[in-house]
């Protein structure tokens, strides 16, 4: 059993001295997002998803393993 087998991100590890918080400079959004803006963003995201689909497929091929990958022998002296 490991010493800090946890999943909460606030476990038993020694995180050392806590640094001073930086002054908050970012204002919180004053207005909630409008329905129009939400719809536009959903559309933009969907269009982007379609554009990157071929790239995602190509990148996914890297995790498709074949026998020749797993049986590759590493024996250089």
């Amino acid at each position, binding site marked *: 059993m*490991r*010493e*800090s087998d*946890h*999943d*909460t*991100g*606030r*476990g038993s*590890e020694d*995180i050392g001295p806590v*640094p*001073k*918080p*930086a*002054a*908050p*400079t*970012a*204002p*919180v*959004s004053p*207005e*909630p*997002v*409008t329905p129009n*803006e*939400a719809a*536009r*963003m*959903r559309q*933009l*995201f969907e269009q*982007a*998803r379609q*554009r*990157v689909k071929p*790239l*995602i497929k*190509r*990148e*996914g*091929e*890297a*995790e*498709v*393993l*074949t026998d020749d*990958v*797993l*049986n*590759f*022998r*590493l*024996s*250089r*002296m």
Partner: protein
Amino acid sequence: MSATSIPSAAIGVVRFPAGLGAVCPKPDGALQWPPTQLTYLEIYLRSLGCATIVVETHYVDRDFVDDFARYYARALRSYPNFTTRLHFFNESFTEDAWRAMIAASADGQRDARTGWLQDRYLGFCVVRPLPASPIGRTVLRAPGSRSDGGHERVFGGAREYSVHLCGLDLKVVGLAFQQQDQGVSACATTALWSALQCVASAERLHMPTPGEITDAASRYVLTDGRSMPSEGLRVEQICEATRAAGLAPLVVRSVSPEQDRVQLMSYVRSRFAPVLALSVGGIGHAVCCVGLKLGDIRPQTNPSLHFRDAASRVEGLYIHDDRLGPYASAELFSDTRPGPGNVRTSLMIRWPDNVESEQAILQSIIVPLPPKVRLSVTRMRALGLPIAEVAAALDEIRGPVTLDVRYERAVQYKQRAYEFCLSAEGLYQLLCELPLSRYVGLIEISSPAGPLFDVVLDTTDSGANPCALAVVRRAQLPAAALPQLEALTAIFGSRRIV
């Protein structure tokens, strides 16, 4: 000394300019001397400015004594069960000065003397009593953070090692290297041994010795008939040994130079040290990737996309190659082969004195991951790619947008969050109210001025289920883009932290 007497130990101090030959004389029966690794170490130590070697003549090394028990103890030749350990310093001092330091340490100056030695400490090398493969566990300081050519160097695979020398505690940051002995270990064993040094330490797991790795690798898969003398491992055997060490092997096939850069950038910057399966002249070879050589971010090459990829910065690697030594520099380049679209990732492995060594073709990358890190880089990018495209399309964001994907331990992310310039409410939400997985996945979207926002992912899920935990505003996101950030957050059903 009789065969059963307590061995004698001595500490010697040797000036380095004489080279390693003075402390590693040619052993009886060695056909080729000095071995390439010893010459490489000498060149590397010169580049670190080494001036003095402190020699521990009797050192019991955990890895060698295990190899000894498994293999060498049953040989006809009487191999000693101990080693010699060399400690390197970049300041010149004599044996008299060393004796004076020990005496002064007993006189209330221990911290001051240890600090003086620590500032000058370059690491250590275990010299085994094996004529053909003397270089045992070796941890040396990694090269500086900038190359002579101005490239940034990142050594994600390095960690801190504690070293005890004559009752003084020293530290060195690097990654352990050792030479294959062709008895207990081959290149794949030592590459995996180095890779596990990094992640097993972070996960507080047992650090397997080369002998334990070879045994574990051949427990269920033994296609070569016998495990020792070791004549190499297959990738599936590396996976088996990784599982035996309590970790999960992720194997990524080399598909194209661009995608290999993505994988290497993401895993090495996430503090994992992958094993690289290479083909050198048609023969398989394994090395451990310790670090990256980074240049500028390159423009997008795909005309239908609008963001830039942080992985395009990768120009080279630093590898532990057991035929050479630690931190060997390897340039990455594209090698066009016959056939349509057949472009392979090539490595040109160079010596520290820039004499070209040889060319290798990358076959696959094996990453020993903590078992609960289930979300792979490929799956994180499947989410990150459309997010980067959306960010690049927003009028509210100026300048080119860059996508970077990596893992970070939640503890470290929360420590960094103090510098994110979040509102008091946002900071409190992130630090005190948001449960995070031990390792979080980070999709970091940046502009040339700095980070704009992060999408924080739960890595304990495979990606089949929604895994975005939060969208976190970073300092360079303009206030005008906050509604868009909120809309993006709603798409993922995650929390918005601003």
